[in-house]
């Protein structure tokens, strides 16, 4: 039966109080009018949110909403018609805005289908992909509008050394060399138009603005996600409890997937039961030392592998650099040999994680979550060390040796992205399709492959890091990333439905989601940002091409610009702020000090709140004890009352009052009861 929340709860002591129907109705009416007056005090938006989240049936909610509306109308000064019309039209406008916004969401139906068939953890991978797509589309739009279009309109002389051959799509050199795809195709002149458009400043500020906005958006998402998902881990953490009541995925509608989920849940519950029994057996000291030493050995092996791959890439890179320095632009073979480095990098990215999972099989962990986090950490170390080595070699050796070195770096990043995409396609074919065929037809024991969410998300993070590194050197690189993400979305969906099954251990998907967002911020975004910042701040741009030709560092555009605005009095204040505030160290010391003080303050508040939660929890436990005690007393008193109910009623009241008073005296001795408890007992006892 539907119950109104304003009704007194059944199954508690109040039911035994024997309130008459009239009194119950009175209480309901009081609660309702209290609720209505509370609601009418809120602002419009909050009021409708509160009405929507009332836990009642629809008719009751509508009744309350009508009452609140009548109260609001009666309070206004304007004639009721006008006011009603205005508020109505305003609400309809807001509703139409939300529905328009929903229509702009891309892939809405596809995501619903994926969630329905595979569950929320697999859906999180696709949502992550969609989120990355938004970054790239935004980057493409602002780069295209602010940098590329002015450049195309006032195009400098582009000399195509060679005609278009097919190899350009893979290597990026040749026909693409001097186009707007890369840094070298841009010019640093001031375009003479009604407001003069300084291409140098435009290039600098566009890239800087995009990086800053990206960083802010990442920090915001990370903190929101952290707040939602890492809340209050007190109490028993390893729980089978929440699995039973909170983890059933209602959004899955596919029959096979539901059976699959049921099986999984059964297995997980069994495992948690056996874990509970195991936790009771203490692990011996020698076993613990053995596990620890195995873990250390495994970590050492993984780090050695990562170091080895890094060194290999480094030597390959320097060798290729000396090889490719003097080359004829028409030589196809040497152009194709530039693809060797990206292919080796992608091979390492493919093979070494498999080795890591093999090494991981020999270790044992007490906590299955620790295993996932450690494997993620190792893979991230591998990928970031590869990227770090590449960046180091690009920034230290390339600028001296190659004439238009930024374009060279841009082309290298382009090649890495394309080859990574091709390997991703190959991975879908071999890793999932063939593995499925082998697992179902040839070697039955292997079974259908599981969709490894962590590995796929790390691949996405790696590609996005490359894209962020490449934006400065190749402003139109996000186009490629957008196309790539689009194709990967549909291919992965296809592969998922044909080849894979959803992962078995789906626990704590939301927390792993937070970890992925945090990894996207650090080391991925921070690394890319520091590389671009280093390039802009300290490296000398190439003399012959690009918008920053002839300057000492690209940052000198800002100095030149501020010098130019120093003179005229209208813009003098901008120069003053730049020279005396932004360039002085004192300003940054002060800011850091203030931020540190605020952080310490907030940390103290958090500590205080933790104490508060602890004491509130104790109060709940004590309240439960109170309730049990009072219920007992109540039942005793009622039993006594029934026993002497056959006698005259008059003396009962007096004796009952007496016994009630002795009960009150007993209560005086306890320290945690509510002194007003006697008011909660009914009056007609």
């Amino acid at each position, binding site marked *: 039966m539907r119950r109104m929340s304003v009704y007194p709860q059944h199954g508690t002591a109040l039911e035994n109080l024997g309130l008459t129907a009239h009194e119950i109705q009175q209480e309901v009416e009081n609660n309702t009018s209290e609720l209505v007056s509370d609601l009418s005090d809120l602002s419009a938006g909050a009021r409708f949110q509160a009405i929507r989240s009332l836990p009642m049936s629809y008719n009751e909610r509508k009744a309350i909403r009508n009452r609140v509306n009548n109260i609001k109308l009666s309070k206004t000064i304007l004639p009721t018609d006008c006011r009603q019309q205005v508020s109505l039209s305003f609400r309809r406008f807001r509703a139409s805005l939300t529905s328009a916004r929903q229509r702009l969401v891309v892939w809405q139906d596809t995501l619903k289908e994926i969630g329905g068939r595979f569950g929320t953890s697999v859906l999180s991978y696709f949502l992550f992909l969609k989120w990355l797509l938004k970054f790239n589309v935004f980057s493409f739009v602002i780069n295209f509008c602010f940098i590329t279009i002015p450049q195309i309109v006032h195009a400098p002389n582009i000399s195509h050394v060679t005609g278009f051959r097919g190899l350009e799509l893979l290597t990026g050199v040749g026909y693409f060399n001097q186009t707007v795809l890369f840094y070298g195709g841009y010019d640093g002149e001031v375009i003479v138009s009604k407001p003069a458009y300084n291409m140098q400043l435009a290039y600098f500020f566009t890239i800087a603005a995009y990086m800053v906005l990206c960083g802010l958006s990442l920090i915001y998402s990370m903190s929101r996600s952290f707040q939602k998902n890492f809340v209050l881990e007190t109490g028993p953490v390893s729980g089978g409890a929440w699995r039973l009541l909170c*983890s059933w995925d209602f959004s899955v509608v596919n029959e096979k997937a539901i059976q699959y989920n049921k099986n999984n849940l059964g297995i997980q519950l069994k495992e948690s039961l056996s874990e509970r029994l195991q936790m009771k057996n203490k692990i011996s000291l020698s076993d613990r030392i053995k596990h620890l030493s195995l873990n250390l050995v495994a970590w050492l092996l993984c780090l050695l592998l990562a170091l080895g791959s890094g060194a290999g890439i480094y030597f390959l890179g320097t060798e290729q650099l000396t090889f490719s320095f003097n080359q004829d632009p028409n030589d196809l073979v040497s152009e194709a040999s530039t693809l060797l480095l990206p292919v080796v990098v992608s091979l390492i990215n493919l093979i070494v994680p498999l080795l890591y999972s093999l090494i991981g099989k020999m270790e044992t962990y007490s906590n299955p979550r620790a295993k996932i986090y450690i494997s993620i950490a190792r893979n991230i170390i591998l990928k970031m060390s590869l990227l770090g080595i590449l960046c180091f070699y690009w920034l230290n050796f390339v600028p001296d040796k190659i004439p238009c070195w930024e374009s060279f770096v841009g082309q290298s990043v382009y090649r890495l992205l394309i080859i990574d995409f091709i390997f991703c396609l190959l991975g879908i074919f071999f890793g999932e399709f063939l593995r499925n065929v082998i697992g179902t037809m040839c070697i039955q024991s292997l079974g259908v492959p599981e969709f490894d969410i962590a590995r796929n998300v790390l691949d996405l993070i790696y590609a996005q890091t490359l894209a962020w590194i490449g934006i400065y050197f190749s402003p139109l690189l996000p186009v490629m990333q957008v196309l790539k993400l689009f194709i990967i979305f549909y291919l992965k969906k296809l592969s998922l439905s044909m080849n894979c099954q959803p992962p078995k251990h789906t626990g704590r998907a939301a927390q792993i989601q937070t970890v992925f967002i945090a990894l996207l911020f650090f080391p991925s975004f921070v690394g890319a940002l520091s590389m671009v910042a280093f390039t802009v701040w300290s490296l000398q741009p190439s003399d012959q091409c690009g918008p920053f030709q002839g300057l000492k560092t690209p940052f000198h555009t800002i100095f030149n610009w501020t010098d130019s605005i120093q003179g005229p009095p209208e813009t003098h204040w901008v120069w003053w702020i730049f020279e005396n505030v932004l360039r002085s160290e004192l300003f940054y010391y002060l800011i850091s000090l203030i931020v540190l003080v605020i952080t310490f303050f907030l940390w103290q508040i958090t500590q205080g709140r933790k104490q508060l939660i602890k004491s509130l929890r104790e109060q709940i436990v004590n309240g439960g004890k109170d309730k049990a005690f009072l219920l007992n007393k109540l039942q005793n008193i009622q039993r006594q009352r029934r026993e002497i109910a056959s006698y005259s009623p008059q003396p009962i009241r007096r004796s009952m009052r007496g016994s009630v008073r002795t009960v009150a005296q007993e209560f005086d001795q306890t320290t945690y009861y509510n002194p007003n408890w006697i008011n909660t007992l009914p009056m007609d006892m």
Partner: protein
Amino acid sequence: MSHCSLLCQFFISEISAGIRLQCTVCHGTARMGNKQTIFTSQQLDAYQDCTYFTRKEILRLFHRYRDLAPQLVPLDYTNEPDVRLPYELIGSMPELKDNPFRQRIAEVFSEDGQGNMTLDDFLDMFSVMSEMAPRDLKAYYAFKIYDFNNDDFICKSDLEKTLNKLTRNELTEDEVRMVCEKVIDEADLDNDGRLSLEDFQHMILRAPDFLSTFHIRI
């Protein structure tokens, strides 16, 4: 026109929206599926204010409701007809038909408690199960769904029934009992041997996935 809106359904049953038709009885024309003949604007405003759906979604859900039994549900809701679809039809919807808790969901959201739903109950159900409903509201209804005996507490027998619906008889009797004991051990804060709504809401705090899993897409 009111004659048309009732009788024309008898003659034209499965025709899609927006087509102009000629009624053979009165020779008037009626436009089927035009939103102005389904709800009054006050009704639509009330639906929008009291559920998490936009106008478009409310109409789409109305057509989903109607598709379950076109002969029972009239196209004209302006005079608030008392139409109640039996549980068997609701339980046969693709979003619900394989859900192990479909009967409980229908019982919790229906007015009569038996699973027979009016349009208001139908909209309310999908509004609470949509992604826009807040955590507390979902926790309240999840609690009611798992409370099989409707006593406002999740006791051991409720947990056993939930467990049996969720696992396909994979656990033995002993294991079922142990799991239920473990749940109550971990989640019962006031130590009365059963879970109250507050205990359940506290447990939800530790499960950040709850908002995304307690969700039916329609």
